[in-house]
């Protein structure tokens, strides 16, 4: 019974922590730009 209560407490705690992270966490937005883009040799100027 003691083991069962401890397991229940562990699962419950994990659930609460996961819920807090899910609601309060700032996972950010996946990158919306970047990756391979076409290189225009004549049009693209080097930085100043």
């Amino acid at each position, binding site marked *: 019974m003691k083991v069962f209560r401890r397991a229940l407490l562990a699962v419950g705690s994990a659930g609460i922590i996961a819920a807090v992270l899910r609601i309060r*966490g700032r996972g950010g937005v996946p990158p*919306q730009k970047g990756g391979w883009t076409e*290189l225009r040799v004549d049009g693209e100027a080097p930085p100043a």
Partner: protein
Amino acid sequence: MTSYLVVGVGAIGRRVVEHLGEGEDVMGVGRHDQWPPAEVVVLATPSPQHELATRALASGAHVVSTSDDLDDVDALLLVRPPDEQRLVVAAAAAPGLSGLLARHGATFLTQLDEIHVQSVGTGGPTCAIQHHRALGGTSLGWHDGAWQERPAGTGRELCWFPEPVGAHDCYRAELADPVLLHRAFPEADRITARVAATRRDRLTARLPMLRDPHPEGLVGAVRVELRGAAGTAREVVVLGAAQPLAGLAALVAAETARQVAGGAMPPGVVTLADAEVPTNALLGALADRGLRLERFEGTGARTAW
């Protein structure tokens, strides 16, 4: 009309003839055939090519070589063409396009520190044999003012190539790119070259090839990464192109031959990474012929922690 002679009628040679064929006097011959006189000779035979280059130069022609073998490239760099004749060394994919991309990428930096070249795929069967041999040899890399020799097949790096090729593990190999790039960019502190390889490639690299090479590789890409400073900021410039390597090498060789015929190349021994080469004109011509040149743009997104 310029007369071109393409020596070698394999996966690359056939395509060079096709590319040059429009409105020009082009002939493709085998290595041991009689060579008719021509103004520009493109060598698309298996390595070594330095003896063929000497023979072609003696006939009065300009020469474009596609060799990617380290020893052969070293020998080609030692050839002294007569005045006003041109010998372009290693005008293929890597080396070749890699040098053009490095030269163009360097314009984005105010100080160039490192150049790293990676490639995926092979052209025809001879190129596959060369890839196998390169993975079984000793790689050469320029590291802080000295050449470093490392066993080929080591130094795994996961590299992203333009789509549809994507990510591949790349390893050190006995490649000619560092020698050519060091010649063109003596200011760079570190220069390396790697090729993509599978576990089987690495495991069997020091054995004879266990089966016949495929007629032609269907996947290919070249990628050049330059690191240095742009003003006061550190910058990484990554340029690349994805296309099966036989077609890519043939395109680079053919457009280089056109530039040689047009007198745009400097006389003497030239590599495509040299500053005197009309880099933008060549890259523009490759793009006009359908090669999509790409730059890897990073993202400004920050992680949440």
